[in-house]
């Protein structure tokens, strides 16, 4: 929870009152900003549980026994195929994530562990993708997918997202793998472990914290992406949640209950995932994985 920070305050008692004032000011600013950050989300979620009249009459008050209504959720569940969209998003995200992590770790291991000709060049080549967005190649990607019959399949999305996630994953993981002691790996070699086993049995378990950071950074843009689902897989049966919500909300612009309910449905799963992983994410960022 709290980052244990060795306190450097040792002889600052005379300045106690000014310190208190500073602390109050700091809290005031942070609370203000927290309210700004959370306010829109809260407004959307509380209004999704209210009847249409109450949404307009008093948008800022929470639902009470009089104004409570699930009509929006009923409409959404009846009309939209959110369960299918959800399943599609989950499939795409999990498979791409697994491929990014595994292939990324393999490449990072090769770059961090072995000295070979072209090592530096390969590393630079693979790192290029961190700065150059994959979207710029969309025109050619779509042509390639049309030619290979992969349009409107989840496979197309998985392949693109894997390519998109690999550069950063390789970069972060190889930084981490360089920090693993050689003694351990050499001991494994003396025991007759193959290079593959050293990677799988010794190195992978040691970089697990870095993998978690990479996982979160890879997952969020994939789950939230609108561009590639819109272009590569717009068909009903392969829609992701993000695209589904976009299309659905577009159709229901005048049905405020349904719009608010579908927004809330799209927010809640990500929010839960985030709250589960936030500790890991923050630990990953602050431990120097991304600097």
């Amino acid at each position: 929870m709290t980052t244990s920070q060795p306190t450097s305050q040792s002889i600052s008692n005379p300045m106690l009152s000014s310190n208190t004032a500073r602390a109050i000011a700091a809290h005031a600013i942070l609370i203000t900003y927290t309210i700004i950050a959370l306010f829109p989300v809260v407004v959307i979620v509380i209004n999704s549980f209210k009847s249409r009249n109450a949404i307009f009459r008093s948008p800022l008050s929470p639902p009470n026994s009089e104004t409570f209504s699930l009509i929006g959720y009923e409409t959404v569940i009846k009309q939209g195929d959110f369960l299918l969209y959800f399943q599609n998003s989950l499939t795409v995200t999990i498979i791409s994530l697994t491929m990014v992590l595994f292939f990324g770790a393999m490449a990072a291991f090769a770059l961090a562990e072995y000295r070979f000709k072209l090592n530096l060049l390969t590393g630079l080549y693979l790192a290029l993708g961190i700065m150059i967005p994959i979207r710029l190649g969309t025109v050619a990607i779509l042509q390639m997918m049309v030619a290979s019959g992969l349009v409107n399949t989840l496979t197309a999305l998985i392949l693109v997202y894997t390519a998109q996630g690999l550069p950063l994953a390789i970069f972060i993981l190889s930084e981490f793998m360089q920090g693993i002691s050689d003694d351990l790996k050499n001991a494994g070699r003396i025991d007759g472990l193959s290079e593959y086993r050293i990677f799988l049995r010794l190195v992978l378990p040691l970089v697990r914290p870095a993998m978690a950071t990479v996982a979160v950074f890879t997952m969020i843009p994939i789950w939230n992406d609108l561009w590639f689902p819109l272009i590569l897989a717009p068909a009903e049966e392969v829609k992701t949640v993000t695209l589904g919500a976009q299309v659905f909300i577009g159709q229901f612009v005048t049905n405020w209950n349904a719009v608010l309910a579908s927004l809330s449905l799209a927010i809640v799963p990500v929010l839960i995932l985030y709250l589960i992983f936030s500790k890991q994410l923050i630990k990953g960022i602050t431990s120097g994985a991304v600097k």
Partner: protein
Amino acid sequence: MEEKSHKPPFRSHILVFLAPAFLIYTSFMVIPLFGTLQMSLYSQIDGVQKFVGLANFATLFGDERWAQSFWNALVNNTWFFVIHMLVQNPIGILLAALLSSNKLRMRAFYRTSIFIPTILSFVIVGFAWKLILSPLWGVAPSMLDAIGLKSLFAPWLGKEEYALTTLALISVWQFVGIPMMLIYAAMLSIPDEVLEAAECDGLSGNAQFWKIKLPLILPSIGIISILTFVGNFNAFDLIYSAQGALAGPNYSTDVLGTFMFRTFFGFQLQLGDPNMGSAIASAMFFIILCGVSIYLFGIQTRLRRYQF
């Protein structure tokens, strides 16, 4: 990567480790990128792709209608970026500085809450703000009313002169968590001895921030600036969700991403043109490449990194 096999100890496992990542990255990122650059040099003439050299770029920059749209998108995009640099990054640094101060209670709560908008998708953010700012619903006007500023309300997303700035501020709201986290991490990595030494010299509070911490986090600010640059010149989703592919009102929120999307797929009466779409993508590629090069060769090498 092809390893030459005439060298005596050929280590095939290196190839095995590198191959999957290398192949996927090359075939779905690098080849399409060059494919797109190449396509921008061709044009569809009588149903066949013909090499036309730089003719597409001549049209893009020379033809009045195209050039007007392109410069409009580029200027809007630049403004979008400027707002991020002027608003998002200073707020991020301020929040990080506050969070990293000693003995702050509820640190984890603030960190977690302020980062929440960042994990939401553009679609959610775009629609949520569209509803909140909508004059129909009245959340924004009634809130302004509460502080006596109701007269300031305008349908910001619907007015040409405000729409782009409003969208940029929404995007700032969403992404402030990223500079905050990265700067926060950089500040935590400043050793306590340095800060203690500063305190012994009588530097504390604001003076300590400006004279000690800020110079030490400059490299992180550089990284954040370049990330903001690449992200902004690649923006599409938020504008598409909130304003549609036409980037209204009257193209006032059009950025390079939406312009490329419309050109590539066509919209309403305009037919899609993959070659012109590629030309715009190539222009974006060169803009981003220039920005990244300026950062890598001009700025990053001049920033002093301190090793502790």
